[in-house]
């Protein structure tokens, strides 16, 4: 009976109806189509007849699009209609057959196709049958044409997939039990779903030499199925030309052309896009299986982008960090710092409150004692000698509590490190990325002022690169010489060039004013300069001349460096006097390690509240252990003004407490009890100060432009702009404690 039964039972092909009559000629023909897979009903005529009698059932209800696939019609006139398994779908012109199937709710198996990369069409897994086409077509590479009748569930399509799968598995080693991808492997899943139950391959499998791609990506190249996703990712998104395809036929392999490490700050993403276990995470190798892990959807705090991540933990331990899809922020990439900083969460942790004794040694004490000591000292100093500094990883709740506590003590000298001593916190448009990270894709001219997005915010850089690649945007850069992974024009080193552009003497002025959507990005490293107000007013002048801020387009952006910065400025963490730290007697460092610790007077009493034994600890008199971002619920605002929340994935270490709870407890011990006991209460306190910080996952645009700012009279100094970040891999206490990051900076930043 063979295939006749199955054809009849599906009743998807009109011709198959004919086959219901026992036509011996067709019967013989169909023997050639015999699949490897055999089922009992295919063997016995009775059961297949029974199956045939059930044919022509009512069509199943239409399916929902795969993974929430959205269709965006740029031009409604361009909509075309195709039929997927008999259902009409309206899609815009230019979509591929595979995308049309996704909209129709049919998930086509694929290896090489990736929605964010160019189309290669070399794995052939996505073969579907198209009516009037002589052979199955690779749906990922085939544009959908009006009226096309696509069939994804026919025997021809199934047999094609089964055949492709057999070829793919021919040279794929059978090492799933020792493979790190096991359990989350596309090849495993799809061979279960679409593959045959046996192979016909009896020869030797080929083997390929492993490549050294550096300390982050582990390669087992024998497992590679040559989908070239990693090659395309490296050239298109990461912008490094390191990976490539060598050889032909069975000698084909992925490699670096010369022995070279992958020097990209996005290199970890090839681990995610690799559909098999050829590229896996080196630090995670053989540490855990993916089904043992508990995923917690959180956000990243190692830079100001606020990438959406999933923290995978096992018990009290963070095992790995993987990206989460967020089209507006990180698409589906994260930087290597985000992905591999997690081992820093397990090293150099502060786990007990400690007090420095008279001999200069720290001694672990109980919370009662520690808080009592801090409260007593705080009472002994004058209010104006109290200074509080929030660190770059602080959440909004803790910063709110710190500001409230210090205000109750009578001091207003509280700020967040990285914001400089006289930040502009009054106009929100003056410290956030007004265009938005996703908005950068629409820009056609970029002017980068004192910022190196590649190291300061790798994912913002990926967006700029996307604009440069797809829209051929021009990039002008003012600042110290650096390495971008796209073409750019180095305009100058510092304020002189800025002044030239502002006064219209520079050729780049023309480029800006001719541009449709010009974008100016100013680095937050300039906040630390004393002449920051003059610089920002000059940049605003450029923005005004170049018509950068319009009603439909705001191209004036500040690229922040740290996760805490935006929220700190929203909450008004601005020091009262710029010289407060030199005259301080009581300094409260809330995770602040990068402030100038030498400027704190020697007789000052320093309290360090934080999670890592980093720079600040060595100057501290009392250490209060706090929880890290993976252990607490904290609100962070990213550089484009989008408020997001971390979610605790693991318990805190030792005797540590959440940041805001420590400050709340200290306030009570000091007799200045703060009026909130719960996170909800502190959120309502935040709402009165900065309502945008309680609207989770919402991007709150700035209301007023810089036009209402008062004129600045001070002059710019002519010192060139310095690089804000020297070492991409080690910027905060977590990444400085990380061994992997130390390895990276040793191996990859080697000049």
């Amino acid at each position, binding site marked *: 009976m063979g295939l006749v039964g199955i054809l009849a039972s599906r009743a998807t092909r009109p011709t198959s109806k004919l086959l219901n009559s026992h036509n011996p000629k067709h019967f013989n023909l169909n023997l050639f189509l015999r699949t490897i897979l055999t089922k009992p009903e295919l063997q016995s005529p009775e059961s297949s007849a029974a199956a045939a009698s059930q044919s022509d059932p009512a069509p199943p209800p239409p399916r929902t699009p795969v993974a929430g696939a959205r269709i965006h019609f740029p031009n409604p006139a361009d909509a075309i209609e195709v039929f997927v398994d008999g259902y009409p779908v309206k899609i815009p012109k230019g979509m591929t057959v595979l995308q049309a199937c996704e909209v129709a709710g049919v998930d086509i198996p694929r290896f090489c196709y990736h929605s964010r990369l160019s189309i290669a069409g070399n794995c052939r897994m996505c073969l579907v049958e198209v009516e009037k086409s002589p052979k199955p077509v690779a749906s990922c590479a085939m544009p959908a044409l009006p009226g096309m009748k696509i069939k994804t569930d026919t025997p021809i399509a199934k047999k094609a997939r089964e055949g492709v799968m057999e070829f793919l598995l021919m040279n794929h080693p059978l090492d799933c039990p020792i493979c790190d991808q096991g359990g989350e492997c596309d090849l495993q899943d799809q061979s279960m779903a679409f593959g045959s139950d046996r192979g016909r391959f009896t020869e030797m499998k080929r083997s390929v030499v492993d490549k050294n791609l550096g300390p982050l990506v582990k390669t087992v190249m024998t497992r590679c199925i040559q989908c070239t996703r990693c090659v395309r990712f490296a050239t298109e998104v990461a912008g490094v030309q390191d990976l490539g395809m060598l050889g032909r036929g069975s000698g084909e392999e992925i490699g670096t052309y010369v022995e070279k490490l992958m020097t990209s700050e996005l290199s970890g993403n090839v681990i995610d896009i690799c559909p098999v276990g050829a590229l896996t995470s080196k630090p995670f190798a053989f540490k855990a299986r993916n089904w043992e892990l508990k995923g917690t959807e959180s956000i990243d705090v190692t830079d100001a982008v606020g990438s959406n991540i999933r923290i995978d933990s096992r018990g009290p331990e963070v095992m790995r960090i993987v990206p989460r899809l967020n089209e507006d922020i990180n698409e589906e990439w994260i930087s290597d710092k985000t992905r591999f900083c997690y081992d820093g969460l397990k090293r150099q942790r502060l786990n007990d409150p400690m007090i420095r004794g008279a001999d200069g040694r720290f001694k672990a004490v*109980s*919370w*009662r004692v520690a808080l009592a000591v801090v409260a007593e000292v705080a009472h002994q100093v004058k209010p104006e000698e109290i200074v509080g500094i929030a660190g770059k990883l602080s959440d909004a709740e803790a910063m709110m509590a710190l500001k409230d506590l210090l205000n109750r003590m009578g001091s207003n000298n509280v700020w967040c490190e990285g914001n400089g001593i006289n930040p502009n916190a009054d106009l929100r448009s003056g410290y956030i990325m007004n265009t938005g990270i996703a908005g950068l894709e629409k820009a056609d001219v970029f002017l980068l002022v004192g910022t190196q997005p590649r190291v300061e915010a790798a994912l913002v850089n990926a967006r700029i690169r996307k604009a440069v690649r797809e829209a051929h945007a021009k990039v002008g850069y003012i600042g110290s010489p650096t390495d971008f992974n796209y073409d750019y024009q180095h305009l100058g080193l510092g304020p002189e060039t800025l002044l030239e552009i502002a006064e219209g003497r520079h050729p780049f002025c023309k480029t800006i004013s001719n541009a449709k959507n010009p974008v100016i990005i100013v680095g937050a490293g300039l906040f630390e300069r004393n002449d920051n107000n003059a610089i920002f007013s000059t940049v605003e002048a450029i923005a005004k001349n170049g018509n950068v801020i319009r009603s439909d387009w705001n191209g004036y952006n500040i690229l922040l460096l740290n996760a805490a910065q935006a929220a700190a400025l929203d909450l008004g963490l601005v020091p009262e006097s710029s010289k407060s730290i030199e005259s301080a007697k009581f300094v409260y460092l809330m995770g602040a390690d990068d402030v100038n610790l030498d400027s704190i007077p020697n007789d000052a009493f320093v309290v360090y509240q934080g999670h890592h034994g980093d720079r600040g600890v060595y100057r501290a008199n009392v250490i209060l252990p706090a*929880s890290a971002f993976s252990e607490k619920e904290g609100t962070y605002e990213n550089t484009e003004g989008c408020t997001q929340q971390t979610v605790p994935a693991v*318990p*805190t270490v030792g005797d*540590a*407490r*959440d940041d805001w*709870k420590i400050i*709340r*407890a200290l306030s*009570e*011990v000091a007799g200045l*009890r703060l009026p909130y*006991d719960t996170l909800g209460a502190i959120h309502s306190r935040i709402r009165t100060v900065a309502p945008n910080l309680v609207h989770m996952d919402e991007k709150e645009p700035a209301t007023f432009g810089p036009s209402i700012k008062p004129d600045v009279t001070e002059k710019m100094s002519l010192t060139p702009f310095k690089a804000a970040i020297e070492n991409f891999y080690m910027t905060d206490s977590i990444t400085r404690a990380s061994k992997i990051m130390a390895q990276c900076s040793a191996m990859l930043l080697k000049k």
Partner: protein
Amino acid sequence: MAFTLRSVKVAPNSASLEEARSRVFDFFRAACRSLPKVMEIYNLDDVAKISHLRSTIANEIRKNSHITNPKVIDMLLFKGMEELNNIVEHAKQRHHIIGQYVVGQRGLVQDLGTKDQGMSNFLKNFYNTNYF
């Protein structure tokens, strides 16, 4: 077995409160005498001192100081004796002893005596744990 406690059996009822009271002291003495052995078999030297355990026992007894019914006291004494016997016979493990008598039910036992009046619930919880 250098030392064995008398076996646990139901003693005749105390005739009066005075007799019950003296039995309580007998029990306390028996418990205190067994402490060196408890320290040894549970290897408690690095976490507790004998005086610490002794005050824990005294605290446990004082918790019931308001009871005046000799029958109830007899019953509590029986339970105490049973517990003591279990401990001395090594029927427990080290972490049982540490959990029940060194650290106590609510934080460190020694902290129970300190003045927590006027402290908010938040602060009380804060001293115990991060999760409340």
